[in-house]
């Protein structure tokens, strides 16, 4: 019975306009974001290149120098970017606050702000301003050294003061600067990264992480509409009463319906991933290795499945509970908060719904963060299971209350 119900639900999803829109929007979004020539640009590093890309700084001195360099630029422009509650907010400091920020900077560097400005101009002047690659290198190489004897603890205290001036969600939060300071890679480091990409990731897995980064954004939102639409369908079609009167248990009805929607939501994701990974399978061959042909299943399976599961399950739960489309507003707000709330675009996992990895490679960094990532995904997987159990409970409760959790005095 469960299998028959599951397949009938799949068929129902296929006939739905909302699902059709989901497929179109997902495919358009992904194909527009995933650069077609990524595979072509992926090359083994050669000695003597002027720029090898960047990596996240782990050294405390480098973190301090990079953060202070950002601070010089932000004070200079007096344009501070923050994401309180996950939403973008531009901040402009008053003259008095700017003076306070300059004083903090001077305390960290031991140099007056004007001197730091001159040093900044001198640094950027060394690079060719017309070349994007040169400018990337100039930005990555820009550093402001700390005062002698200045400790990391003092630096942390100083950055807290900056956060006090500009508000929450700035680049001066500890979680932000510890993962957000990028330094240029040397040839040796670039080679090490490339080797890890080939050996550990077998190329395709790294590309699938980038795929998951983009897909994760859109999958935090689109399944809400599919879930809400399905959960409201019974009421709209006036089939609730007849469904409730049937012997099938609430668990069977809800779980089959949920799994059918989940499977149907996943199909375009895996198909798109499969198609997009093909150039990278070929690219891996040119590096003399065999790409992981199953990466399109394994990486999105771990990365995206818990996200789709929780988004869909929560939309089922809220809609079953309220019989309204309120889930759309609640969950879209949550998704937007998660998108803009990320302190960095690579590796800010914590408890974020959307796990960001907006880079191709950085295999060693991912390995160091993998445990936290897996904990994050396990959390959302379990949350989805809890939501579905609660949905079944709500459904059964409604079944015994005439279809609504609220008494209707007019019903006779």
């Amino acid at each position, binding site marked *: *019975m469960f299998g*028959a*119900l599951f397949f*009938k639900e799949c068929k*129902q999803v296929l*006939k739905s306009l909302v699902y059709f829109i989901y497929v179109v929007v997902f495919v358009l979004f992904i194909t527009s974001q995933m650069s077609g020539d990524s595979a072509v640009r992926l090359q083994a590093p050669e000695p003597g290149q002027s720029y090898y890309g960047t990596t996240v700084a782990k050294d405390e001195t480098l973190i301090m120098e990079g953060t202070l360099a950002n601070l010089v630029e932000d004070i200079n422009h007096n344009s501070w970017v923050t994401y309180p509650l996950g939403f973008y907010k531009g901040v402009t400091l008053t003259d008095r606050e700017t003076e306070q920020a300059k004083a903090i900077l001077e305390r960290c560097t031991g140099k007056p702000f004007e001197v730091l400005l001159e040093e900044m101009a001198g640094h950027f002047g060394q690079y060719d301003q017309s070349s994007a690659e040169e400018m990337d290198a100039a930005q990555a190489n820009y550093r402001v050294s700390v005062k002698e004897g200045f400790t990391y603890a003092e630096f942390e205290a100083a950055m807290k003061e900056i956060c006090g001036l500009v508000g929450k969600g700035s680049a001066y939060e500890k979680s932000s600067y510890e993962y957000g300071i990028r330094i240029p890679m040397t040839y040796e480091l670039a080679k090490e990264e490339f080797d890890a990409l080939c050996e550990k990731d077998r190329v395709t897995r790294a590309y699938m992480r980038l795929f998951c980064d983009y897909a994760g954004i859109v999958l935090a939102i689109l399944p809400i509409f599919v879930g809400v639409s399905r959960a409201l*369908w019974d009421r709209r*079609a*006036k*089939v609730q*009463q*007849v*469904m*409730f*009167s*049937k*012997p*099938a*248990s609430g668990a069977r*009805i809800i779980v089959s319906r949920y799994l059918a929607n989940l499977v149907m939501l996943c199909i375009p994701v895996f198909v798109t991933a499969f198609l997009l990974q093909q150039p990278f399978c070929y690219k891996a061959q040119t590096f003399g290795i065999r790409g992981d042909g199953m990466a399109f299943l394994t990486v999105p399976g771990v990365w995206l499945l818990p996200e789709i599961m929780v988004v869909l399950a929560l939309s089922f739960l809220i809609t079953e509970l309220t019989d309204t489309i309120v889930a759309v507003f609640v969950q879209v707000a949550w998704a937007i908060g998660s998108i803009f709330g990320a302190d960095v675009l690579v590796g800010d996992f914590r408890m974020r719904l959307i796990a960001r990895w907006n880079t191709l490679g950085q295999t060693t960094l991912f390995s160091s963060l993998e445990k936290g990532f897996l904990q994050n995904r396990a959390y959302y997987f379990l949350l989805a299971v809890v939501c579905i159990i609660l949905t079944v409970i709500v459904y059964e409760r409604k*079944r*015994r*209350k*005439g*279809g609504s959790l609220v*008494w*209707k*005095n007019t*019903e*006779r």
Partner: protein
Amino acid sequence: MEISIEIQNLTKYYGKKQALSEVNLTIPQGMFGLLGPNGAGKTTLMKVLTTLLEKTGGGVKICGVPVENSRQIRNMTGYLPQDFSMYGNMSAYEALDYLAVLSGMSKSERKERVPQMLEKVNLLEKRKTKVKSMSGGMKRRLGIAQAIIHDPKVIIVDEPTAGLDPEERVRFRNLLCEIAKDRIVLLSTHIVGDIEATCENIAVLNQGKICFDGRVAELLALVEGKVYSAEIAAVELEKVKEKYMVTGILTTGSTANVKIIADEKPFPQAKPVQPDVEDAYMYLMHTE
């Protein structure tokens, strides 16, 4: 196993509002009519019997099984709700097959029963018609098909003929009588004609209370010798309506033929006539 529904002191509250009050009823095998005005509590009673509402007090047993055993009750009941519908994008066959799955039927059982049921309700030729394209009558017939697909002992139909044209209504009543041969069909309606044409046993529910429970003949006996027909001047009509319970008026020019319920002969020219269920029902409603 005896096929019957036993209702004892059934009470149902919506918050502080009482919808059913101390309802006692025994429903035997065959067609049973539940009559009552809109808002009498008929739908509430139907929903309690089909486990869609929890009772506040009292006891209900269907074929000896307490209504609290919802799974068992759902297996032995079929329900056609007042506003039955199905997903508009499904065909008649798909809709029935879907509901048969929810009734726990295997693939082979469905393959046999679904066409049978469609044929029974005269929808086999329309098996590919989408639910959204069906007329009200076709939807009700599909509703009956889904209610009997798992061969339940009890079928509960709530206001099944409301909104149907006369031909569809007659066809639907006949269908109900056919399926009531070896089971209980509980027909809830406010249309007296439906009961009169199909049921031997009836109960009348008013303001949440049973005000009559018995055979149709017993209901008719309540107004035996109290129904009169008289020809009066049309201008006197208002006066007569104020004084007596008028259950029928046929105006022809300046005269009107009225049907009156009265304990004694209302005027000399009035002639006693044979009462029908509608007269008895009206009498009951006004004397309650």
